[in-house]
């Protein structure tokens, strides 16, 4: 019981730490309205590039991608941010499992990511006149959650490298740029060359975006469930990889003893 209370206490403190010197308006602007501008940019580019098509798939795809700011960047920076704060050495010798630290740091981010994606979707739908009539909302929330879980697993996997490298911001930005191209949010995956298509299906969100798009047209239940299951599978694989990588990187980091080097 004490451990659970401590988990939530720590999770709340980590979350509070990020926003303590910002006003509510600034947080709202940064976390809600900036993502809407990002969504608008890609949707307007699609309107120009695809000659004014119905923008449903771009609004869905890009609102799904909005959660990567929390799932990928916030979780990815778990250890990297501690390096800048000079606390990585303390964390590494602490008896607490590093996976628990990552979970504590990302716990509230999951909800924030969900809210950001939902807000982006709402604004995108209102601006571009996308109707949710006939869309099964339960299935929609399921596919959104499955995408977020997969992205969290991926974020956990990448966060481990923060223990051994000071270049994680670079890595995370490259990964985000790759996701913009490969996840099918901005153009059909079929347009990509075959090797790139393989990469697409190795990334989180590709399947959940495809599943969410399906909900706005004719739903093939078997295919839909398969996409959700595959997406959760991708998340699970990355989570296991993250666990193993975390262990390896922890050992390497202790051996190198270069936590405060840049």
């Amino acid at each position, binding site marked *: 019981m004490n451990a659970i209370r401590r988990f939530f206490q720590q999770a709340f403190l980590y979350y509070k730490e990020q926003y303590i010197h910002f006003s509510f308006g600034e947080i709202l602007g940064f976390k809600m309205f900036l993502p809407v501008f990002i969504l608008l940019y890609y949707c307007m580019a*699609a309107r*120009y590039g695809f000659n004014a098509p119905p923008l449903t798939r771009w609004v869905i795809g890009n609102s799904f991608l909005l959660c990567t700011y929390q799932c990928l960047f916030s979780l990815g920076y778990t250890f990297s941010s501690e390096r800048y704060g000079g606390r990585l050495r303390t964390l590494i010798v602490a008896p607490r499992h590093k996976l628990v630290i990552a979970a504590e740091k990302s716990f509230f981010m999951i909800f924030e990511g969900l809210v950001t994606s939902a807000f982006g979707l709402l604004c995108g739908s209102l601006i571009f006149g996308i109707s949710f009539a006939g869309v099964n909302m339960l299935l929609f929330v399921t596919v959104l959650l499955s995408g977020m879980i997969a992205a969290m697993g991926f974020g956990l996997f990448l966060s481990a490298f923060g223990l051994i490298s000071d270049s994680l*911001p670079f890595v995370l*930005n490259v990964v985000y*740029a790759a996701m913009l191209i490969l996840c099918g949010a901005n153009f059909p995956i079929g347009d990509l060359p075959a090797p790139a298509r393989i990469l697409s299906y190795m990334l989180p969100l590709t399947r959940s975006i495809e599943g969410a798009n399906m909900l706005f047209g004719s739903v093939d239940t078997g295919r839909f469930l398969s996409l959700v299951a595959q997406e959760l599978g991708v998340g699970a694989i990355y989570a296991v990889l993250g666990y193993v990588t975390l262990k390896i990187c922890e050992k390497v980091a202790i051996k190198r003893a270069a936590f405060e080097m840049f």
Partner: protein
Amino acid sequence: MNLRVLASTMAVQMKNSFARPGIRMCLLIAPVANTILLYYMFQHSGRADFGMYVVLGAGLTSLWETIIFSSMGDINRERWNGTLCLLFGMPTPYPLILLGKIIGNTVMAFAALVLSYAAAYILFGITLTVNSAWLLIAALLLSGVSFVVVSQFTAYALTLSRKIVIYMNCLNFPIFLLCGFAFPIETLPSWALPLSYALPPTWAVRMLRMCFAPAIDLALYGQYALILLGELALFGLMARLLYRAVDTQVRVHATLEVF
């Protein structure tokens, strides 16, 4: 003396900026990634000039990102390192040092445009034809000046802020949208157009696009250049007034090192 300070600040700034992984991302990876993304988004447009939109869109977004993340981020870094107050208090004027930093970033950031074109050519065989090299050079110079002036204005505005990280992120996508870096601003809703017209980079982008059109309307090019110069003068004046206000605030409150 002033020119020497400006040149040495630029040189140090470019070295420091390029040493940071974040800027290497903006400068080397983002132009290529943006080129690939925009190519796949625009290839079905059926427009003969879509290649120009791909190259300029990818290049200009990466260029602005590099300038804004480096110029704004540097004020934040100087504050963290405790050197912002030294920069402010030294005999060399703070605006001159800031200008050196921003020009250094802008010169470096133009590599993003070259890389976008190289990526478009190598990956997709896109070639651009320039109808007048001199007009292109003039447009590039004016683009550079417009980015410097807007960056300097925002840098003054944020000198007092301890929350630069948030604001510099917020200056990215709204500017991409309003200045029409990747697509014409006419695709924006009509109420947003006055905002677009008020920003100097909008006119610079229009001038750049004209240089790659099959034929150039010299009168229109000149008109855009005049509007751009007028706006630059206005932004320059506003930046000067803003700096006076910031300078007073800095000396009265003395909180440049406070977090």
